[in-house]
């Protein structure tokens, strides 16, 4: 069965290549559906496949850039990408990320920061999960109240409407983002992208996990546009990250390309699946993904604090993340199949009339 293994030219390790394709497929589906790169899902997967940690992050970011580009192209055709908003946000994301990354190195020299960073990550994830589910609760309350009054809630209405307060800030220049349907100060998306980029740099993640909810709740993008625009952001910042990590010699291009084979299929499935799911469906899924991510961080914290159970909780964290990748990608695939079947049946019925 030697043909199932490929020798990586830079890291010199033999990797089970079908595993790379499956990992790319799963993360491609989830990433295109939620609008994120999914570095936090890929890195443990690459580690399990035998990748040295020094190459896991760079390889992950390289594949993420290519995969997000594929997802952006597909979402773009659906009209889910606000390129103008994406371009405005790039500067903030890159500058914020670089400052965050430099800052963490500075903090590392002062003292031990990894535990602090994990706690910070946990607080942020808890906040995002709370945001998603309290938004859902408010939206359901609005619907209930409207039904009682014999009215209907607008199909684009949301529960939490913090973006309306932010839109009242009229610092020039004001900009109209047509696809997102947002009119606000140019400084709002710049400040938000800077802040999410800075946090991503500190936490050592791609940033999609933070930027997607920020686009929803602070900028006020519809869910599908937030997903598409965030993927555009991930593709650009991913290319920047690839350049940075590759220049440091930490990218295994062959593995990234093998992963891209699975990811290109997964990205199409995930992006098309968003067509068959309403905005709140995506938000709720995203909320569950955030909860699983938070649980895996708790496992990592327990492992770090108790050396005697380190292996157990580290393994549990990996099982949680990879189990989620498997369960969610399978479910999204089922949603995609159901949607396609229904659309084809409707089309056939229309032609028959």
């Amino acid at each position, binding site marked *: 069965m030697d043909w199932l293994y490929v020798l990586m030219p830079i890291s010199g390790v033999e990797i089970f290549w079908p595993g790379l394709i499956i990992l790319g497929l799963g993360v491609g589906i989830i990433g295109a559906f939620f609008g994120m790169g999914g570095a936090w899902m890929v890195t443990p997967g690459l580690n399990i496949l035998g990748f040295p940690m020094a190459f896991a992050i760079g390889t992950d970011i390289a594949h993420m850039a290519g995969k997000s*580009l594929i997802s952006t192209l597909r979402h773009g055709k659906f009209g889910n990408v606000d390129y103008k908003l994406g371009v405005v946000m790039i500067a903030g994301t890159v500058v914020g990320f670089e400052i965050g990354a430099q800052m963490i190195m500075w903090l590392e020299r002062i003292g031990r920061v990894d535990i602090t960073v994990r706690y910070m990550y946990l607080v942020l994830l808890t906040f995002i999960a709370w945001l998603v589910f309290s938004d859902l609760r408010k939206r359901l309350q609005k619907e209930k109240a409207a039904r009682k009054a014999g009215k209907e809630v607008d199909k684009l209405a949301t529960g939490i409407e913090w973006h309306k307060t932010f839109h009242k800030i009229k610092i020039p220049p004001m900009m109209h983002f047509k696809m997102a349907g947002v009119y606000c100060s140019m400084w709002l998306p710049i400040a938000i992208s800077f802040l999410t980029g800075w946090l991503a740099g500190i936490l050592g993640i791609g940033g999609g996990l933070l930027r997607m909810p920020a686009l929803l709740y602070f900028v006020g993008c519809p869910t599908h546009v937030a997903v598409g625009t965030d993927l555009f952001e991930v593709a650009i910042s991913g290319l920047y990250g690839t350049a940075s990590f*590759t220049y440091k010699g930490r990218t295994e291009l062959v593995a990234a390309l093998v992963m891209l084979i699975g990811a290109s299929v997964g990205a199409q499935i995930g992006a098309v699946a968003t067509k068959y799911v309403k905005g709140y469906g995506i938000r709720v899924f995203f909320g569950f993904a955030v909860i699983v991510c938070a649980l895996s961080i708790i496992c990592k914290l327990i492992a770090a604090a108790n050396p005697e159970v380190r292996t157990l909780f580290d393994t549990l964290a990996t099982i949680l993340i990879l189990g989620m990748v498997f369960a969610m990608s399978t479910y999204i695939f089922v949603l995609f199949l159901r949607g396609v079947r229904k659309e084809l049946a409707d089309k056939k019925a229309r032609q028959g009339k």
Partner: protein
Amino acid sequence: MRKIRIKMTALLFFLFIILPGKVMAAGGGGESIVIVADTRRFTGAMAWWTDMYNDSHLLFAIVTIIIIPVVGVIMGVIADLVMSRVGIDLKHRDLAEH
């Protein structure tokens, strides 16, 4: 409204002016590790690739950031063509939250 504006201006001032100064003052970079690829185990394109890695990380990085988007677009177009054969509408979707 005025209070929010003042707070936002103060926050932006902190983020854009003070923070970068503090970070720059701290300097950057961790310990550098030198990794060398073993070229003896490869022939052809793989040998060329490992040689390039050992010779120049800059060239290696430039070629990588060209290859990734090019391959991404090619694979995206192929997957797109396959998906269009399914017969579904790939250009329109209903934008609704609920």
